[in-house]
């Protein structure tokens, strides 16, 4: 199987986004990288199924999603997940204001992590990856109606959870919130 240089470069270029999507699904950095690795291997082995000119990122998202579901089925990892969620959010930002901001961000992240699996995938694709409803429904191979109903449930849940968290809407001094390099 050959992969031309441009496709290879594009794949490398979208790796950060693939890792982000995988993180949303697995809720754990190491799991996410495993997942991306498996998905890349799969993708490369069947690169002839990808039509040049179509979106490589959407195709990769689909492979990640299906690989994730396979993994979920084969490995019962619920306990691991629960433990992981508890450890999320230990991000180090300097300054009080940044701490305040990161608290809000942690709340959002936690709220997303606590969504059911299928809703979380939809939120990751639509809200975070910025896919259109149509693109997201193609990635997840679900009808538009299913997609929108999952999205509505997820978004209303997030609004409810965030309202309950009673955090400041937008931190007022968040410019210290630089994406600081985090220890690996």
């Amino acid at each position, binding site marked *: 199987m050959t992969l031309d240089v441009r496709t290879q470069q594009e794949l490398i270029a*979208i790796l950060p986004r693939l890792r982000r999507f995988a993180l949303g699904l697995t809720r754990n950095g190491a799991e996410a990288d495993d997942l991306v690795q498996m998905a890349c291997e799969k993708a490369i082995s069947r690169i002839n199924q990808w039509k040049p000119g179509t979106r490589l990122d959407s195709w990769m998202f689909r492979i990640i999603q299906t690989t994730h579901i396979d993994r979920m089925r084969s490995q019962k990892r619920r306990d691991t997940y629960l433990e992981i969620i508890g450890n999320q959010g230990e991000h180090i930002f300097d300054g009080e204001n940044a701490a305040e901001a990161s608290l809000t961000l942690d709340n959002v992240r936690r709220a997303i992590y606590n969504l059911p699996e299928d809703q979380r995938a939809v939120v990751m694709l639509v809200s975070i990856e910025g*896919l259109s409803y149509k693109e997201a429904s193609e990635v997840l191979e679900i009808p538009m109606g299913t997609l929108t109903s999952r999205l509505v449930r997820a978004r209303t849940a997030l609004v409810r959870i965030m309202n309950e968290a009673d955090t400041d809407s937008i931190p007022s001094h968040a*410019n210290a919130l630089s994406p600081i390099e985090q220890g690996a």
Partner: protein
Amino acid sequence: MMNLDESTLIAYVDGELDHETTREVEAQLGNTPEARVFVERLREIAALSRVAFNDTLHEPVPQHLRDTVINTITLSNTQTPLSDKGVATFRPCQQTHWGKALPMAAAIGGLLLGLGGGFQYAEIKTQNSLQLVALAQMQDQIAMETQLNKALEANLSGNELAWRNPDSGRSATFTPIRTYQDKSGQYCREYRKDITTDGNTETTFGLACRTGEGTWKTKYLILENGLAESL
């Protein structure tokens, strides 16, 4: 009269409604305060969600992942579309940039803007590095800040403001993406900034809020150097 149910409002926030329905929703939002609050909350959470998941984008990709892509592949340079065309016609820089920009635009998808690519930015770092760079570059920075402020103050969402310095060759566009009010009534806007220097375009997404009379202060800023760099 349409019904402002949750799913309509969510589709509205996601830019999934057609033009006419969007206008209708906006008209009704004017006299439906609860719906307005819901819409603002949705936008705010969507913006925060994007920022919350940005860490992954600016972390370096583990080498073993890159190796997976690099090593298992049999390269075939001769099959790339560019080479197919044989001895190429001259491609002006601008065209090349569009070639770079388009997949990214596609990745972003419609009205919704994701924060694609690898990111790295710190406002503070910029402040420090300003002391080191040439005066010309500093002037560009200041000029661009002014232009960004102008775009945020005056441009409708989706309308870009273009800027160019013929001396340095640097050019930029500033595009407000969405506007909303936070709980305290302060106006905030998400925006996109594309800066082209020496043929390289850097795309930045930011969230700025209006702090004073005509003054916008950026609260989140994320620099993209992913796709554009490699394609």
